[in-house]
């Protein structure tokens, strides 16, 4: 168990920076997810923590120990790779036993630990097989078994379930989270899937273009994104963005759009502090913070036309066409509107966001 601190870390590949001035502290025993699209520097970060890449500048600390110059074997970390990286010529038993053997554990310890790990992961019946005889989910369990058999300071999981099918992925999310809670070991989990990060992690570090965008708990990331990029990346279906004008003075400020004019709540006016002068902003609203009806519910409702309906099992996603854009609304499957019909949208103003039109930072 260890607290992992990443301090002012940069990573260059040639002239290209992959990670820019990263600062993260992962508390002891926590489950931290590094979330971002491909090429955002999340895997480079993980590989620097593991010692598989050099750190261009900055420090990585495990508790009070600077690990920059330690070889991977001396860092006492365990890693699960995206492609599992099992040893194809060794049995499952030998794969899991490998870290123990490399550290010279006695045969009885090896047997006890391997069987313990296999039991925990429910792969005891597979110990005699070779990796090529296993399914994707089983290989992934073996890779996890190899990581947990040694009780390391830190787990590093690099998109370990990205290649599994959807059902198995949902199952493994729960299992990995439970495993981390049971073992209590600090875990850093790299993923591009915002659902994995939101559902599993204690803290999420959202990265984009090598920079840390936001650090916070899943609910902070989801409910209070610091900028438009985070707001757009996290959440499925994605947040709707509309460029609006800002009108008003004092306590009466409204967002203006061709189709609507909606006043801000009093607290939000203060948070907007002075941005009104620029005259434009981006409104962000998640599909589930909008409600749709076929009759006009109030004066502030937005009039639009239904473009298409998508039934997603328990929910219905309706795409509504406004004058110059389309926005998506989540509603119940019972919604009866047909494409082409006029409809009215109401915004839940407690859950909407306003971002700066220039750099995209969030006012609220």
């Amino acid at each position, binding site marked *: 168990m260890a607290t992992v601190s990443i301090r002012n870390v940069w990573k260059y590949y040639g002239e290209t920076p992959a990670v820019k001035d990263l600062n993260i502290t992962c508390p002891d025993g926590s489950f931290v997810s590094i979330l971002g699209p491909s090429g955002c520097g999340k895997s480079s970060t993980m590989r620097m923590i593991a010692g598989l890449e050099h750190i261009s500048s900055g420090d990585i600390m495990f508790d009070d120990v600077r690990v920059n110059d330690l*070889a991977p*074997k001396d860092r006492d970390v*365990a890693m699960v790779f995206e492609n599992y*990286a099992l040893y194809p010529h060794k049995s499952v038993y030998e794969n899991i036993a*490998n870290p123990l053997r*490399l550290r010279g554990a006695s045969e009885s310890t090896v047997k006890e630990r391997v069987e313990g790990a296999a039991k925990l992961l429910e792969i005891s019946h597979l110990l005699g097989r070779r990796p090529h005889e296993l399914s994707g989910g089983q290989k992934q369990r073996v890779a996890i078994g*190899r990581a947990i058999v040694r009780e390391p300071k830190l787990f590093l999981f690099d998109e370990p379930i990205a290649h599994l099918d959807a059902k198995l992925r949902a199952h493994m999310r729960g299992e990995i989270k439970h495993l981390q809670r049971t073992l209590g070991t600090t875990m850093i989990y790299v993923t591009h899937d915002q659902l994995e990060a939101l559902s599993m992690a204690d803290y999420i570090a959202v990265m984009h273009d090598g920079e840390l965008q936001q650090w916070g708990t899943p609910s902070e990331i989801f409910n209070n994104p610091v900028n438009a990029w985070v707001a757009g990346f996290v959440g499925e279906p994605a947040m709707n963005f509309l460029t609006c004008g800002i009108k008003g003075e004092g306590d009466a400020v409204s967002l203006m759009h061709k189709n609507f004019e909606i006043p801000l709540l009093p607290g939000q006016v203060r948070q907007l502090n002075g941005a009104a002068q620029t005259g434009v902003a981006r409104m962000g609203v998640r599909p589930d913070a909008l409600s749709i009806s076929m009759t006009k519910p109030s004066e502030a409702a937005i009039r639009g036309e239904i473009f298409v309906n998508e039934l997603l099992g328990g929910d219905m996603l309706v795409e509504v066409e406004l004058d110059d854009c389309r926005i998506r609304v989540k509603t119940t499957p019972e919604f009866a509107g047909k494409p082409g019909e006029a409809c009215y949208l109401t915004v839940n103003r407690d859950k909407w966001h306003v971002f700066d039109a220039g750099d995209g930072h969030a006012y609220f």
Partner: protein
Amino acid sequence: MASRDVVSYDTPLSRALSIFGTVFVAFYLVWTLLPFVVMFVSSFKDMLEAFKLPVVGDWAGMTVFFDFSPTLKHYTTLFTENSFGTYIMNSLIAAGGSAVISVVFGSLAAYSLSRVDFRGKQDLFFWIISTRMAPVVAVMVPLYAIFRSLDLVGTLPGLILAYTTFNLPFAIWMLKGFFDNVPYAIEEAQMVDGATRFEAFRSILPLVAPGIGAFVVLCVLFAWNDFLFAAIIGSGGAKTLPVATRELVQPQNIQWGSIMAAGVVTTAPMMLLGLVIRKYLVAGLTMGAVKE
């Protein structure tokens, strides 16, 4: 590497081609195997019997070939009057020694070229193979001069060194392809598990074993069948089988019986080797080409 059923339908052309194919293969087999059969059979014949030939066109006379009383006297001569025992050892040591040295250094170099990026890597890689581009005869004279000044002419170490000069670049090129096909993540996993770089390298050797096996065979074959190096650099103290066989041809007396027996002694071990590792060889030579 799964093979697939190729769906084919009979047409007059395909039937004609198939008959042609069969005939061609039959001729090819006769062409390839007949010399070996003649060599093998003649090595057990007395000189007089060996030169008994049927008249041209007399197909029934073919039986003359197999009408003889087998004798082992040519083989006995090889090992008593000529010291073929020593020559076999020389051949084995020269071929085996060069194969082992080439595999050890070749796999280390190939691994480095496959895994580590450094400036001038492509140039170095090309330079390594360019040493194989000149024909052997072109470098023979300077090589001889160098070897002579180092007192290596006529010694087994000299011969091993000469073969290694030519086998090592080949080893590096061939084995690099095999290392390239092993995912680097496997070594990374090893290193995170607690292995040093060298232990990680050792751990993937089983994965390139088919490649190493195939290379060893080709390397042994090259050295075993070589005449030029053996005649010039190995002459005298490090006489190998091909050179010794050549010496059975004397101006006034060509010892056909012994030559045939020497041919069998030289060929048989390589044929056996080929049979034993045939599976490896094919897997090894195709594995490099197909990325899984």
